[in-house]
């Protein structure tokens, strides 16, 4: 019983310390765990990869490392996909891998308390709730908290080769 409350308290502290990087895709605001973020850079010099899904823009050279670039706007079927000065790439670490994700803009870093994180409802087809760690409410804003690990290693992202999946 005692142990139970301890665990709960510990979990609460851990959660209350969670920081998120908030970015926008169109008019929607998304957030990912800041600890996954390696760096933020501009969108440039991407080499196209033939026969890849449209949301995989290609690969780029990140100080000698070849990094795939995924456009989440295409993946999430946003209507307007433009590449301009504001367009940024968030370089994230997923396991041992490094992946860049294209977003419209990065706004800020937010700290969310556990009570601000609501469970994600069952979603539609485009973004399965499997890839969400919840919804963050911040006064009148709603942040979609993306579990970037799960999303980027999922089969449908086709970023990682899975067993029996040889092209």
């Amino acid at each position, binding site marked *: 019983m005692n142990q139970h409350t301890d665990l709960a308290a510990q979990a609460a502290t851990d959660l209350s310390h969670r920081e998120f990087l908030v970015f926008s895709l169109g008019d929607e605001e998304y957030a990912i765990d800041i600890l996954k973020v390696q760096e933020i850079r501009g969108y440039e010099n991407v080499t*196209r990869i033939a*026969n*890849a899904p449209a949301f995989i823009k*290609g*690969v780029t050279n990140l100080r*000698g490392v*070849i990094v795939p670039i995924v456009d989440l706007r295409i993946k999430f079927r946003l209507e307007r996909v433009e590449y301009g000065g504001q367009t940024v790439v968030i370089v994230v670490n997923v396991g041992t891998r490094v992946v860049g994700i294209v977003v419209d803009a990065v706004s800020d870093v937010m700290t969310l308390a556990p009570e601000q994180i609501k469970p994600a409802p069952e979603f539609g087809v485009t973004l399965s709730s499997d890839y969400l760690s919840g919804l963050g409410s911040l006064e009148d804003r709603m942040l979609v908290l993306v579990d970037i690990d799960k999303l980027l290693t999922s089969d*449908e992202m086709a*970023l990682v080769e899975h067993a029996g999946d040889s092209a």
Partner: protein
Amino acid sequence: MDITDFYDTFFEEAEELLADMERHLLELDPAAPDTEQLNAIFRAAHSIKGGAGTFGFEILQRTTHLFENLLDHTRRGELRLRPDIVDTFLETKDMLNDQLDAYRNEQAPDQEAYERICQTLKTLALEEIGQALDGGAEPAAPAAAAAADPAPAPAATAPPADSPADQAATSEAPAQDDGTALVVALIGVADKDRELLVEELAQLGEVLERRGDAQRHEVVLSTSVSAEDIEAVMCFIAEADQVEIRPCQSVAGTAPVTGTDSAPESAGDSAGDSAEKAPDAPAPAAEPAPAAPGSDAGSAAAATAAVTTAAAAATTADAGSPPPRQQRKASTKPVKEASSIRVSVDKVDQIINLVGELIITQSMLDQTVSELDAAADPRLLNGMSLLQRNARDLQEAVMSVRMVPMDYVFSRYPRLVRDLASKLDKDVELTTEGESTELDKSLTERIIDPLTHLVRNSLDHGIESPEARLAAGKPATGRLTLSAQHQGGNILIEVIDDGAGLDRERILAKARESGLNVSDAMSDDEVWQLIFAPGFSTAAQVSDVSGRGVGMDVVKRNIQAMGGHVEILSRQGQGTTTRIVLPLTLAILDGMSIRVGEETFILPLSAVLESLQPSRDNLYAMAGDDQVLQVRDEYLPVVAVHSALDVANARTEITETIAVIVQGEGRRYALLVDDLIGQQQVVVKNLETNYRRVPGVSAATILGDGSVALILDIADLHRLDREKKQRRHHDTRGAHLLPESQPLTEDLSA
């Protein structure tokens, strides 16, 4: 200071020693064993025993101890070697490997296996030496032979174990029961280290006295640990020549004898060797001294009491003095070792990556400078060309660090062949050629599995039984040859057997059975390629060793993943040659950069045969959208890069393009590109590190301007193009075209 810090060093060293031991055992001719080799094997066992004792790996230590005793008898000619004894020795060596692995994984070694091997060794000693020595002058040997179970014995006689090294004293324990006083002299050891050393010593026994100055500090130690083990502990902090161990005056009676004994031995050696000898020479002096009475005066008592450890001690006493002598004889080896260092592959890879970056930066600078007016600053231009040369030299030097001789791979096959041949009742002689051919370390590691598979196949299915061979008019002993040689930028590795060869009819029949599309008109080459089909195995050939075909697809895939390919040459009744062609290194590639539309790609130069401007006259259309290009007397299929890789804005009029004749996996075709840009060395970057395999592409590289260019996979590109054409063909009736995406992702990317 924690002794566990040195575990890894010990494990690595022990592993090398065991590998050495195996090599020597395999080279050993049982009929006329080479003394040097026997000594080397003995030394390896001895060193492992010492280390195991120091670190408290009791089982390992006891096993090596038994083994060492047997080896000692062997090298003194008391145990006559036979092939089956060598087998037992090899088995013991394997067991030691297992035990080592267990300790490394912090597990207890397999007790049952340990007991079994001990029993085997003891039985061997009893049968072989017991008889041989009956009338001999060695009183201790029968006792050793009579040994029922030496393992528990030391537990009874040894003093309470308060340090790991105590347990090391299986042999010394009974004789040194009361503790021996040793003088440990520390010569020129820094103050800090000296205190550490004395602290260590205090754990091994009781420090009776400390004397001397900072330059030569002597510690009198009462301990049951052998001088050798003490030295093993000390040498982690102090250099070997900084420590000197000798028995204290109280046991001086024996000390001078051994002292003079070892003196002349060392006299012959060069002065430079003294570092090596200093610790060795006193070691035997300490060891045999207390043990000698056990075997000499008390031999009768020892024998009647069947105190096994006394016998063991006696053999060690005998064994004790020769090893240093041998070590000195082989002193060239340690000296050689001192000139190399062990570096983790990660570090080397990091250096290679950084040098790659440097090359890229250099070519980036070069590009900028080449746009400047040449007369503007000649010093800058001179500096640039110097930088270029230095960077290239540096790259070459760094790459050579990763190159290891093929011997590293080949050396593991004598054992495999020997074991398999005896299991299959076949006579096989293995020869290796070109062991010194160098190959990238990462490739040697990856080639081992496929090569092992091929060797197994050759033994199991290639080489026939001696009877069958004689019946076929061939010598009873089959020949298996492993060879390696350089050919241009490639290495050619061949597995050649003079066995039965592949059976064309059977392969064809089996292929038909499994629904593959084959015809009798197929060329031999094409038929042989069939055995690489997944799951292909001619049932009649399957055995527990291998089934030709099972896993051959894996062999092929592994080799392709390394950027190489496999060819088979086979003549029925005469044998099979499997040839693996691999690039020398995966890190650097001679490439030809080409342009298609606005995109730049790299072709591996090794795959490029020639390039030409196709003309209408030489182009022939084939059914559908297929085209062939006539080049001299050959008709080559045409693959356009822009259609295979969906490049926009490429030239579509064939006569405006350039046809590069390429060859991949034995297939030639004409690759259509817009322009040739030039040849350059590129640093190969793996796409799979952060992404995945891309069809038609083998890797990526970074160009001078910092952008990424894809390196095309010639063989795969042809396949991709064919698949696409087929798909397009199927889809012509459908409403939409599916030109892009792989089967798995197409529905999601749409």
